[in-house]
């Protein structure tokens, strides 16, 4: 039996939470209460209204507010307040009808088209495009002419006209999840399509559907009132639009007649739009963690000697580096703690540890690529003569002057660091033109030469191509070429082979090794694989929970690991182990540490993992072209 793994104690984000978040939003609660008020007024209109909406007191037309007519009377002597209440019924019901028709057509259409694709998808797309191209008001005028002044019929037609908005929304939402593995898993279990759609797919559509409905109802009210205002509605039914028309005709005699229906329409539509926004905000809201107001927390009093190893030969020196992420208590959770390391010219330093050990955060600190919420809390980073970080203060200019020129970066995900909109040639040459100031032709020549050196046989073809036309291993070679293009002295490679096959991994490591030897460049290689370290590194630093637990020459550390964690990492290698026998790793599993503090750190790192930085080359292009 395996040990029970402790799980992080994160509060659950449930549907109820969404509602609560919405009610905490002042605009959400305001719009919701206004809408509730209007709905109640409409429902209880017969009880509240002092008069029948069509009861005309011809002796008392255009009366001022007051007396038995709290809001006055209109040009036919009808009570404005009563008509307003009854008008709310008509307006809300017509908006509801319109939304129901639109959903009844758009939702199933979108579900089927998105889930199955094929001929139904192309046909329904054609219909939806056609409906969107029709001029709505003109169609409604024709409908009025053909079917008479029924507000219901015109709203049914308006619902049909507006159904493509639901159709498109549903279709794209369904398309984005229909190939997700959890849908596949449901198919394997034998769930029917209907159940898959209702259990796994509808939930994706639900939230956008509610938001869309709030907005569509607003539009429907506007259109319906517009038709009534033009006098195209049913003259026997009280409606806000026709009241508005009456008020407009008597604007000089009794201006307040326009005010009430205009207010009613405005408030209803406004509340619907605000409600839609509030729902969206509530759904998108992640617990916002604000950075502590204090500039920096007090570092723990000197329990350790400052580890400033003043190695004159070192190209890079990191001393006592601590990196933190703000947490819910308004403090910083330290994910890197007092890390010190040095790299000499032409040396390969391997930084090894499990995910969550803070190894990538250390590398990003050197590159100045930490996520925005992260903060260097203490320590210094020196690259040759330039001080990038001094006592926790980052010198932004120094970092910008060095990143991409003197320190290059090879990322974990090669594909996401190549822009699909530009040729690979452009992405290789552009940084050279910008940073080295050489001509385009010379840059292209250099790029070709570099591609050939990283083992790409036909550089011209690759340079003309786009990211999607090459494999992952090829993309990583391209990024290595890009990293070398500005003749750096140090390359920081963050898990450069993790996303690749074993055979491709070996080849990419060959390329990095050859380049490193030929050009004498130093490499900081971040990985979780001890085998990769054995293959390429000269020295190794083992990281665990934000701290370096062991460091030294590879030959020494891997032969005689002193720290139990290093031994655990080595024990996880499968080579030479008895097949079909459990390895029985000692030590706690990832994320299974026992303290609350550990949970907190893990959460901060999870948050950090979501934000992989781009390579400087990719960033140069991005910044330039926006």
């Amino acid at each position: 039996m395996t040990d029970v793994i402790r799980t992080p104690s994160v509060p659950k984000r449930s549907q109820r939470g969404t509602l609560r978040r919405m009610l905490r939003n002042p605009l959400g609660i305001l719009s919701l209460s206004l809408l509730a008020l209007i709905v109640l007024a409409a429902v209880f209109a017969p009880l509240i209204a002092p008069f029948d909406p069509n009861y005309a007191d011809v002796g008392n037309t255009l009366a001022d507010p007051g007396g038995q007519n709290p809001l006055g009377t209109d040009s036919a002597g009808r009570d404005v307040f009563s008509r307003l209440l009854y008008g709310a019924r008509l307006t809300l019901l017509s908006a509801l009808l319109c939304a129901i028709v639109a959903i009844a057509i758009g939702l199933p259409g979108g579900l089927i088209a998105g889930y199955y694709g094929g001929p139904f998808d192309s046909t329904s797309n054609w219909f939806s495009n056609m409906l969107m191209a029709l001029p709505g008001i003109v169609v409604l005028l024709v409908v009025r002419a053909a079917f008479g002044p029924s507000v219901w019929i015109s709203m049914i037609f308006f619902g049909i006209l507006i159904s493509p908005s639901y159709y498109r929304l549903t279709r794209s939402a369904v398309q984005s999840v229909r190939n997700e593995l959890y849908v596949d898993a449901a198919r394997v279990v034998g769930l029917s399509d209907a159940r898959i759609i209702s259990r796994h797919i509808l939930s994706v559509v639900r939230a956008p559907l509610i938001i869309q409905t709030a907005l569509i109802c607003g539009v429907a009210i506007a259109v319906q009132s517009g038709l009534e205002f033009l006098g195209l509605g049913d003259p026997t039914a009280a409606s806000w639009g026709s009241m508005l028309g009456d008020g407009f005709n008597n604007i000089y005699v009794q201006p307040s007649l326009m005010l009430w229906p205009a207010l009613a329409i405005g408030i209803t539509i406004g509340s619907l739009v605000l409600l839609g926004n509030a729902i969206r905000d509530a759904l998108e809201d992640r617990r916002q963690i604000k950075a502590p107001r204090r500039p920096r927390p007090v570092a723990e009093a000197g329990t350790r000697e400052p580890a400033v190893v003043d190695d004159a030969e070192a190209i890079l020196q990191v001393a006592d580096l601590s990196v933190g992420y703000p947490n819910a208590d308004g403090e910083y959770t330290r994910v890197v703690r007092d890390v010190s390391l040095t790299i000499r010219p032409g040396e390969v330093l391997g930084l090894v540890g499990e995910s969550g050990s803070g190894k990538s955060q250390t590398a990003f600190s050197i590159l100045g690529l930490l996520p925005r919420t992260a903060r260097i809390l203490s320590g210094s980073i020196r690259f040759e003569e330039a001080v990038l970080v001094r006592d926790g203060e980052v010198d932004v200019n120094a970092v910008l002057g060095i990143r991409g020129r003197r320190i290059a970066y090879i990322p974990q995900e090669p594909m996401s660091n190549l822009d699909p909109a530009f040729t690979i040639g452009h992405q290789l040459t552009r940084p050279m033109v910008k940073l080295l100031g050489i001509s385009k032709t010379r840059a292209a020549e250099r790029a070709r030469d570099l591609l050939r050196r990283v083992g790409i046989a036909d550089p011209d073809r690759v340079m003309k191509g786009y990211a999607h036309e090459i494999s992952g291993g090829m993309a990583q070679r391209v990024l290595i070429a890009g990293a070398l293009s500005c003749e750096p002295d140090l390359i920081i490679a963050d898990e450069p082979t993790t996303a690749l096959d074993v055979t491709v991994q070996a080849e990419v490591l060959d390329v990095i090794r050859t380049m490193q030897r030929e050009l004498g460049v130093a490499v900081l290689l971040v990985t979780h694989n001890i085998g990769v370290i054995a293959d390429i590194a000269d020295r190794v630093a083992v990281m665990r929970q934000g701290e370096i637990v062991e460091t030294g020459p590879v030959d020494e550390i891997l032969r005689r690991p002193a720290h139990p964690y290093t031994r655990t990492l080595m024990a996880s290698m499968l080579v030479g182990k008895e097949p079909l026998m459990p390895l029985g790793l000692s030590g706690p599993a990832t994320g299974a540490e026992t303290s609350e503090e550990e949970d907190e750190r893990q959460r901060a790192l999870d948050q950090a993992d979501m934000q992989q930085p781009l390579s400087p080359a990719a960033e140069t292009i991005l910044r330039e072209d926006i």
Partner: protein
Amino acid sequence: MSGIILDVRDLVVEYKPKKLRAKPHRALHGVSLSVAEGRTLGLVGESGSGKTTIGRAILGLAPIASGTITFQGDDITRISRQDRRKFSGDLQVIFQDPYTSLNPAMDVGDILAEPLGVQGIARDAARRRVVTLLDRVGLPSSAINRQPNEFSGGQRQRIAIARALALDPKLIVCDEPVSALDLTTQARVLDLLLEIQQDTGVAYLFISHDLDVVHHISHDVAVLYKGEIVENGPAAEVTRTPQHPYTKQLLLASPVPDPTEQRIRRDQRLALKTSLDAA
């Protein structure tokens, strides 16, 4: 040798082309393999070799052009979803990516109860079974009310394993179940899979690009290269004395933790590569 549980004969899978009148993309060119009861067949190959496609075809998720798939004596090559439900209790899957294989909107209890519900097991019984399953994969029963995004990659993969185990299957297709994990987490998940096999006698079709992993967990190994099986046999034989040059490369490509030994390996691999390039 015990009975054959899964038998795949001359399987050809073709994906419909995106463009009209283009040639269909043939992902598998007549693959044959079989898995014995209670044993593990490791299927190893590089990305694009079609190894994932084999798994998906067996599960009814890939378009089969020709060939047959027999599971426990029944032909399941082209059965409908409804008929597949009969087999879903015995044939299950663990996918590679623990982040997208669990519905982020459902809580763990509902995810694990889903296969039980399909088989018509009552809610209470299903709930009890879910607790047992969580315990089986080393997760606390409090996980039942949590959502997948609250778990780490390794823990999510445990949840996926629990879902696959829900109906006591006879065969689990494991599609790169440890490729997205750290080496230490990989070791722990492999331990769990081995334990489960010892306890329940389930058979695995274990798909991976890593020969070390396949060698560690499999009784038999098949090597897939460009949509065809190029080598096939007992794990020790295939991984110790590989015949096909691709298998040899694969074997030498995975690094060992000893630097000196790794240097020797690397030189052997480069020498092999040179000789292959020359040929």
